[in-house]
C-alpha cells in the first residue's frame, strides 16, 4: 500500500515562525519518503540543535533529535550498526559548519551511506539571530550590532574537499526540485550532502525569499523579477562522475567549486556532483568483516535464551595462557 503524505506527519504542534524556510524542507522530506514508499519504521531522521533540529518531531519516522553539531556521528553510528536503516541527518549551518564542522569534514572521508541535509540561512535563529558561519563578511543582518566580521565558509566547496560523493544545493522555496534532490540523495550509494538555502524571515533580512526571487531587480523590459536562483539541470549540467579517473575528478571538482562559489546574482541550485565510483564505508568494512552486511552489529545474536554468550573467546584466552 502506497504511503500517503499524512502517514508521515505527526500531531506535534509546529512552532517555527510563519514563513520559515524550514517548512519547505520538511514538506520536501515528507514528500520524498512518501514517493519512495519508505515505511516509517525503516527510516530514522537525526537532527542537530536549533530550529531545524526540531524537524524529527514533525515527521512520523524514528526521530532522533541529538546535540548541537553532533548529528553526523549519531547518524553514522546508527547506520553502521544497522545498514538496513534509511538514515537522514538534518542540521543547521551553525551545526554543520561551526560547532560540528569537524564531524562534517570527517564524515565526508568515510562515505557512509547516509543523506545529510544542511539548512543554510546565515543566522543562528533560535538564539536571536547571531551570524552563522555561512554569512558573508560585511553583511549586517537585522539583529547584528555591526557588520559580520568573519568570512563565510562555503558548504559546497567544503563538502567537495571533504570527500562527499553527492553534493547538491537546494532552495527551500523550490520544493519540487528539493524533493527530487532528497530522493536522489537517499538513493545515492554513499554520503550525500544537500545544502539548502532556507531564508530566516525573522532574523536574516538580507537573504530573503524576495532577494532569492530577485524582487529587487526587475527586468527593465518586462518589469518581471529576475530570480537569483536557477536550476542547473535546466542548463544541461551533468553532475555525474563516470570513469572516476584523476582527470575527470579534477575537472569536476573545479566545476563544483565554481558552482558552489556562485552566491551572488546567479545562484545555481541542483545536483552538482555525484560519484558512485568510490566504495562506501560499509563496503570497506565488509571487506574486513565478511559477515558485516549479512549480520551487522545490531542484528547479531549475542546470547542464547538463558543469556549464555555465543562468542567463543577460548582461543584468545589460550593465546594468553602460559602453561
Amino acid at each position, binding site marked *: 500500500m502506497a504511503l500517503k503524505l499524512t502517514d508521515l506527519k505527526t500531531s506535534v504542534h509546529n512552532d517555527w515562525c510563519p514563513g520559515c524556510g524550514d517548512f519547505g524542507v520538511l514538506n520536501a522530506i515528507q514528500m520524498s519518503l512518501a514517493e519512495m514508499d519508505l515505511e516509517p519504521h525503516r527510516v*530514522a531522521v537525526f537532527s542537530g540543535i536549533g530550529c531545524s533540529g526540531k524537524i524529527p518531531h514533525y515527521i512520523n519516522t524514528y*526521530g532522533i533529535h541529538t546535540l548541537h553539531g553532533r548529528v553526523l*556521528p549519531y547518524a553514522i553510528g*546508527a547506520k553502521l550498526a544497522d545498514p538496513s536503516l534509511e538514515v537522514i541527518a538534518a542540521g543547521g549551518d551553525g551545526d554543520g559548519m561551526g560547532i560540528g564542522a569537524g564531524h562534517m569534514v570527517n564524515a565526508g572521508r568515510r562515505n557512509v551511506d547516509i543523506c545529510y541535509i544542511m539548512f543554510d540561512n546565515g543566522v543562528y535563529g533560535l538564539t536571536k539571530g547571531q551570524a552563522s558561519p555561512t554569512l558573508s563578511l560585511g553583511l549586517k543582518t537585522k539583529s547584528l550590532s555591526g557588520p559580520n566580521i568573519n568570512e563565510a565558509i562555503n558548504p559546497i566547496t567544503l563538502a567537495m574537499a571533504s570527500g562527499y560523493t553527492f553534493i547538491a544545493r537546494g532552495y527551500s522555496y523550490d520544493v519540487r526540485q528539493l524533493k527530487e534532490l532528497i530522493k536522489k540523495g537517499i538513493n545515492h550509494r554513499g554520503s550525500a550532502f544537500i545544502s539548502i538555502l532556507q531564508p530566516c524571515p525573522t532574523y536574516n533580512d538580507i537573504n530573503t525569499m524576495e532577494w532569492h526571487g530577485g524582487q529587487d531587480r526587475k527586468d527593465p523590459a518586462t518589469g518581471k523579477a529576475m530570480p537569483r536562483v536557477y536550476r542547473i539541470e535546466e542548463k544541461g549540467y551533468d553532475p555525474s562522475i563516470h570513469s572516476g579517473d584523476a582527470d575527470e575528478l579534477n575537472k569536476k571538482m573545479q566545476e563544483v567549486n565554481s558552482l558552489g562559489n556562485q552566491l551572488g546574482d546567479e545562484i545555481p541550485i541542483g545536483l552538482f556532483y555525484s560519484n558512485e565510483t568510490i566504495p562506501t564505508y560499509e563496503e570497506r568494512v565488509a571487506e574486513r568483516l565478511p559477515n558485516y552486511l549479512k549480520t551487522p552489529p*545490531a542484528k547479531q545474536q549475542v546470547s*542464547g535464551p538463558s*543469556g*549464555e554468550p555465543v562468542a*567463543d573467546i577460548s582461543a584468545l584466552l589460550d593465546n594468553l*595462557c602460559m602453561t
Partner: protein
Amino acid sequence: MTNNQLTWMIGGSQGTGVDSSALLFGRACTLGGLYGYGNREYYSNIKGEHSYFMVRVHQKIIHSPLSKPDLLATFDAETVIRHALSVNVDGGIIYNSELSNVKLTDIPTLEHRVLEDLVTYLDNNKLEHSVNGILEASRRNGVHIYAIPYGDLLKEAASTLGEPKLSNLTRMMNTMAVAASFGLLEFDLSVLDSAISRTFHGKSKIIQLNMTVGKSAYDYVKGKYASGFQYKLKKVQTEEKRVFLQGNQATALGKLVGGCRVQTYYPISPASDESDYLEANQILKINPRRLSDSSNVEKTTYLEKNGGSVLVLQTEDETAAITAAIGAALSGARSSTSTSGPGFCLMVEGMGWAGINEVPVVITYYQRGGPSTGMPTRQEQGDLRFALHAGQGEFPRIILASGDQRECFYDAVHSFNYAERYQLPVIHLIDKTLANSTATYPMFDLSGIRIDRGAITNGENLNNLSSGDKTYKRFLFTEDGISPRTLLGTKGGVFWNTGDEHDEYGHITEDPVVRVRMMDKRMKKLETIDHEVPIQERLTLHGNEESDVTIVSWGSPKGAIIDAMDALNDENIHVNFLQIRMINPLPSENIISVLSRAKKTIGIEMNYSAQLAGWIRESTGIAIDHHVVKYNGRPISQDEVCDSIKKLVKYDAPKRLVLTHGT
C-alpha cells in the same frame, strides 16, 4: 636463600624493547609455574625517554608491586643511574661492563631534580659522577654488582651463528639481560626458551637468534656469579591453567564475550590499547552449541557460518566516539567507547544525552594523572568525582570500578548488562595501573557468564504495552522507571528522542507536571538498581569481618592492599578491607553496616583529596578516620600499604598520610 620470591626490574630507553623483555621474563616465570605481576612505567614519548618494568614473582598469586627491586637487570647506563640506589640490600645489579665510565651529565633525559639529588648523594659519599660511582655506592649498600660484557658476548654469538651483523643488534641485549638474570637465579633455561618461542611465534630465525644469545648470557653469568646470589627461582609443577594478561586485554575480552559489537574510540593513552586489541581480534568465533535452542538447526548453522564480529570505529574526536556509540546502541548493538580523562571531558555532553534518552552505552574510563593533560602515562584515581558528577542537570548513571584484571574482565560484562537492563550510561572506571600491568591468574571461568539485554520489545507485544494506547510510548511511565525499548527499525515501534525534556513519546515538553513525572521516572532507576543488583557485584569485604580496623578503597590499590593484608597477618596485625566496586549508586546501607563495626577506618586512594571517602561521607554520614593518599603518578606498592597501616594502627599517626614512593 630466598626461593621463588623476587622483584625484578629492567629498564632502558623507550623503543629499545624493554616491554618485550619484561613480558618475556614474566611469561617464562608463568610457564615455570610461578605467578607474576608486572608493572610498566613509561613517559609520554615514543623513543628515547627512560622506561622501566618491574616484575614481581611469587609462588602464590600476587597483585601488586613492591617498592624496591631485588635484582636490577640493565644494559644501558641510565637505568643503572636511576635505579641502582633503590635495590634491596643483598640484591643484585646486572650491568654492561662497557658503560662503567658513562657520566651522569652524559644522560640528557635525566631530569634536573634527579641529577641534583644524585650529585648531592655522590658528593656526600665522595664518589665520582658516573655509572662507576653509582655502582660503588650500591656496593657499599650491600648490593652485588655483576658486570656483563654484552658486546663481547654478542660478537661471540655472531661468529657461532655465522651472522656477523648480529653484533650490531643491540636489541638482543634485552633477551641477554633476561637470560643473565635467569643464570643468576639458576632458573631453568628451558622455560626461557619456551617463552621465546611463544613470544616470537612463527618467526623461527628470530627465535633461534634469541635463544643463542640468551644461552650465552645465561652460561656466562651462571658459571661466573650464581653461587654468590641468594635469590633463586625454581620451576613449580602445576596442573592449573593460567593466563598472563594486562587490564586492557582483560577488559577487551570481557567486551567480546559480553556481546559488545560496536566499539568507538579516539586514540588516547592509556585507553587505546584496548581498542587496538579489539580491532586485532574483531572477527569472533561463534559457538552455537552454547545456545540452549541449538535444536534449531537452521539458525545454528547460520550463526556458525556467518560468525560474529565487532565493528571498531576510530572517530575524529571523543564527542564523535560517544555519540556514534549511542547511535549504534539505538540501532540495537551493544556499544561501548573507551577513553581517558581528557577524552571523557569531550564525552560529557553525549553521556548526558544518553542519560535523558535512556540509552544503554558503556564508557570504559581509563584514569590517568590529571588535571588537564596531566601525566598521560602515569597512574591516578583522580576522576571519581568527575565521573560521578559530569554533565549538566541530574540523570542516573552507574559507575563500576574494577580492582584487578580479573574484575576488569567480569565487570566489562556487567557493564553491558546494567546498561541494557537499566537503560542508562555505565562508566566502567579503570586506571593506568590496571590497564598496563600484567598479571598471572588462574584461567577465567566462562561458565557463569550471562548476558541480560533488558526489556527490548518488538512486533506483537507492542500494542499491549501502553495500556490502551494504540501507539508505542518509548518513555512509558512505569513503577520501576524502566520502559521497554524498541530498536530503530522495529515495525510499530517508532519513537522520538531529544536532549530536551520530553513526554512519553519522546517529544519535547516544558510542561511542569510531565517534567516532574519524567525526572522521577528516570531517577527511580537508581532505586531499582539498588534493590536488584546483587551486593557481591557492588562491594567486597576482604578478610575477617570482625577486625577492628577496616581499610576502604576502590580500583587498583586493591592489589597492594590484599598483598599487604597477607604480610600484616604474618606480623599479627589483622585488618579487613572494604572494596567498593559500585561507586554509583553507592551501596550505602551495606557500607554503613561494615564501617559502623570498625574501631578504626582507613581510606586508601590514589588521589589528593580522598574522593571516595568524601563520597561515602556524603552518602552515609560516616567520616573515615584516616586517609592514605598518593598522587605522584606512581602506583601504590604493597610495602607502602604495610608501612602506613602499621603507623596508623600502632601510633594513631596523622589524619592524612601521603605516599611518595616511585621513580
